[in-house]
């Protein structure tokens, strides 16, 4: 842990401490926690995209290289034999797909793959290598009534009938696959945000219950 000594206008200091007291009481370490929180928000707000951000509202912002591992865990834990992968494509991209793949559908500009669970990750990886589908904002992955969609490049939201306990299991298994130790059971937390600023930094767990 680093120590930080800063100069603050008295008024700002008073307001800061008053809000900390109302939020956390006069517990030991509350000032440090609130300061860490403020610094972290400032870092993110000023342009640092975390390597990994996951919260209990099922929003996921992860480095795009992690996407395949995350999807593999989703596909293992969701009982869906057919997984639908769709995205918008240009005419040139459709021409490439036609050369490489046999089974797919085209609906306007949309390319749709209806895949068996066993073929899903391999096809996703192939399409990622050939067409960079992992960065496309039109990428949508459907497991029956649960679907993943986002703005591309690892920014995702889980929609449909996915229970938070199932999501927590996905997150736990995903972090385990990355050799990240989660020292807390996610189901015991009402709200949480998990942040890794960089690949090798420590996992920051923020929760209202702390």
């Amino acid at each position, binding site marked *: 842990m680093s120590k930080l000594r800063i100069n603050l206008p008295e008024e700002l200091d008073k307001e800061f401490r008053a809000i900390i007291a109302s939020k956390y009481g006069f517990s030991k370490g509350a000032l440090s926690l609130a300061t860490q929180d403020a610094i*972290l*928000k400032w870092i*993110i*707000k*000023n*342009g640092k*995209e975390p390597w990994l*951000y996951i*919260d209990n*509202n*099922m*929003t996921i*912002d992860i480095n795009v290289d992690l996407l395949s591992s995350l999807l593999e865990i989703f596909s293992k834990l969701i009982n869906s034999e057919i997984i639908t992968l*769709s995205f918008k494509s240009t005419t040139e991209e459709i021409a490439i797909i036609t050369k490489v793949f046999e089974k797919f559908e085209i*609906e*306007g500009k*949309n390319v*749709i793959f209806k895949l068996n669970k066993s073929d899903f990750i391999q096809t996703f990886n192939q399409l990622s290598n050939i067409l960079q589908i992992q960065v496309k*904002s*039109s990428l*949508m992955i459907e497991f029956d009534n649960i*679907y993943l*969609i*986002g*703005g*591309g*490049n690892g*920014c*995702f*939201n889980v*929609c449909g009938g996915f229970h938070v306990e199932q999501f927590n299991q996905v997150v736990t298994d995903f972090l385990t696959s990355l050799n990240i130790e989660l020292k807390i059971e996610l189901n015991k937390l009402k709200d949480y*945000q998990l*942040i890794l600023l960089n690949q090798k930094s420590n996992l920051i767990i*923020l929760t209202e219950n702390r």
Partner: protein
Amino acid sequence: MYLKRLFGHFSNLAEHAVRPYEPTPAHLKKRLLLPLCEDISELLKAGTKNDFNEALTGISEICKKIILEKSA
């Protein structure tokens, strides 16, 4: 298909908007607003009367679920 995407992108925007660690303005624009604008544009170009109705109903449901529940 564009309706499902529209709901997904709107839901993503709404979830991001209420989270404690707001994304950067660049992330907000590129990953949340632009995809949603594309969906709306597609709906305007190709949507039927029924699609418009379905779009508004779906968005309204997401608003109720995400925004109203969280402000309660």
